[in-house]
C-alpha cells in the first residue's frame, strides 16, 4: 500500500477540510438562517464525507467499515436534523432576511427589482415576521457586494427546489394543503381534530 493511496487520502482530506472551512465561513457570513442551513449542510455532507473517506485510505479494513458507517449515518442523521431544524424554525416564524426571496408559498422572483415592491406588504400580514428587522437587513443586503446577494439568491432558488422535491415525496401533502385552504384561520387543534375524524 503505499504512497499513492496515502496521497489520494490526503487529497480527500484536503477536499473535506476545504468544504468544512468554506461551509463554516458560509455559516458565519450568510445573511439569514435558511441560507446558513445550506452552508452547514454542506459541511455535514461534503466535508464529513471528504474527511472520513480520506481517512479510509490510511486505515485497516475493519476501520474502513466503521468509517463508512459513520459517513452513512452522518448523511442520514444530519440531513434529517437540518430538515427538522428548518421546519422548527419556520414553525416559530424565523424569517427570511432577503425580501427578494419570498416565502414558500410564493413563486420566486424573476427579477429582484420587479418583486421587491410587491413583497413587503404581503409579508407584513404574517404576524410573526418582524418588519423593521427585515427592512434593516434589506438595507444591509443592498449595500454589500454583489457576490453575497448572488449567494442569497441562489439559496432562494435552492429552497424553492427543496420545497418542490419535498412536496413530491410527501404523500400526505395533499390532505394537508386541503385543510390549509379550507380552514385558514382555524386553530391547529381544531384542524387536527377534523382531520382525525375524517380519517
Amino acid at each position, binding site marked *: 500500500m503505499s504512497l499513492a493511496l496515502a496521497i489520494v487520502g490526503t487529497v480527500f482530506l484536503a477536499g473535506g477540510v476545504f468544504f468544512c472551512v468554506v461551509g463554516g465561513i458560509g455559516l458565519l457570513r450568510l445573511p439569514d438562517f435558511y441560507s446558513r442551513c445550506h452552508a452547514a449542510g454542506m459541511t455535514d455532507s461534503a466535508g464529513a464525507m471528504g474527511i472520513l473517506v480520506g481517512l479510509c485510505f490510511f486505515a485497516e479494513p475493519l476501520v474502513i467499515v466503521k468509517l463508512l458507517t459513520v459517513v452513512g*449515518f452522518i448523511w*442520514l*442523521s444530519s*440531513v*434529517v436534523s437540518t*430538515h*427538522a431544524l428548518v*421546519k422548527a424554525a*419556520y*414553525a*416559530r*416564524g424565523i424569517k427570511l432576511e432577503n425580501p427578494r426571496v419570498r416565502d*414558500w*408559498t*410564493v*413563486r420566486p422572483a424573476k427579477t429582484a427589482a420587479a418583486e421587491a415592491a410587491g413583497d413587503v406588504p404581503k409579508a407584513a400580514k*404574517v*404576524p*410573526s415576521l418582524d418588519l423593521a428587522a427585515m427592512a434593516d437587513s434589506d438595507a444591509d443586503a443592498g449595500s454589500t457586494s454583489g457576490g453575497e446577494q448572488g449567494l442569497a439568491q441562489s439559496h432562494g432558488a435552492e429552497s*424553492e427546489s427543496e*420545497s*418542490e422535491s*419535498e*412536496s413530491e*415525496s*410527501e*404523500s*400526505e*401533502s395533499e390532505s*394537508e*394543503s386541503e385543510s*390549509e385552504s379550507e380552514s385558514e384561520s382555524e386553530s*391547529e387543534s381544531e384542524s*387536527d381534530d377534523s*382531520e*382525525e375524524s375524517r*380519517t
Partner: protein
Amino acid sequence: MTELPLEAVLFVFLLVVGIVVGRLRNLFGAAMLTGIFSFLSAGLFTLLTAVDVAFTEAAVGAGISTVLFLATLALTDDTERESERSWLAIGVVSLTGLALFFGTFDMPAFGDPDAPIHHGVGRHYLMHSWDEIGLPNVVTSVLASYRGYDTFGELAVVFTAGIGVLLLLRSKAAVMGAKAKPIPVRSRAPYVREMPIVRAVAKVMLPFILLFALYVQAHGDFGPGGGFQAGVVFAAAFILYGLVWGPRAVQGIAPERMLEGGMAFGVLLYGGVGVAALFAGGTFLDYSAFTPEHPSHGQHWGIFLVELGVGITVSAVMVVIYFVFTARPRPRLPKRKKGALAPPRLTAVPELPVETPKEGSS
C-alpha cells in the same frame, strides 16, 4: 503530544462557551450552547485519550441532555427573569476559580512521567490488570472489578436519581394508578403524519441504534464503552421513538411499571453478583471466588453481569425521567413581557404549508 495546540484551542473554546452560557438570558439558547460545551469536552477527552469518559460524554451530550433540557424548559419558561446580578455568586465563582488556579502551582507538570498518579495505584492497574483480570480495556477492569464497589455506588446514585424523579415529579394521576388510556391508532395519526421524513429516517436509524447499544454493552471489555454508555444509547433509542411517535407509543412498548422494575432489577443484579461472591467464599464483589481454579474466568463473568446490571438500570432510569418530564401537564405561567423571543405556546405558529409552487401562484 502533537495534539497539545489543539487541546489548548479547545480549552479556549470551552471557556468562551462557558462565559456565553452564563450571560445568555434565553434558556433555550443556553441549552443549545450547553450542547456545544458537551461536544467540546468530548473532543477534549478524546484528545487527552480518556476515551471512555469521552464516550460517556458523547452518549449523554448528544442524545439525552438536550432532550431533558427541553423537557424542563417545556415545563417552565424559556427566558430567565430579569434579576439583579448577584455579586456574591460572582465573587464565590471567582474565588473558586482563583483557588483552583493556585492549586495548579504545585501540581506535577502535565504529562510528567514522575507524577505520583503514574506511580500509585494507576501503575499497578496498567501493569497487572492483564494478569489479574485479563481484559484489554483497563478502564473496564478498574471500574468493574478493582473499584467495582464504587461503580455499584454510582449505580445506586443513578437509581436514587430515578427514585427521586418519580417521587417528586410524577403527576398525581399517574401515581394513583390511573391507567394511561391506550391511544387509538386514529388519534396517533397527526403525530406521525406530519413528519414523514423524520419518521422514515427514524425507522431506519432505530434498529441500528439498538444494535449499537448492544455492541457497546458487549464491547466495553475490549474498547471504549460499557454498561453506562450502552444504557444511555439504548435509552436514546426509546426517546427517539417517543419524539417521533409520541411518549404514549413508547409506553406501549415499555410501560412505566416495567421500567420501574428494570431500574430496580439492574441494581439488584449488580448487588446480587456481589452477594453471590459472598456465598462463593470471597468478599463482596470478589468475582474470582466464582471460579477459584481460574480467577480470571470468574472476573470475566462477574464483569459481564455487573455491566449488564449497569446498562439495565441506566437505560430504565433515563427513559423513566423522560416519561415523567413529558407526562407532566404544563403549569400555567404568568404572562410575559413583550420583547424577547416569545415562548412557543404563546406565539402564533404558522404550520408549515406544504404546497406546490403551482398552487401558490394560482
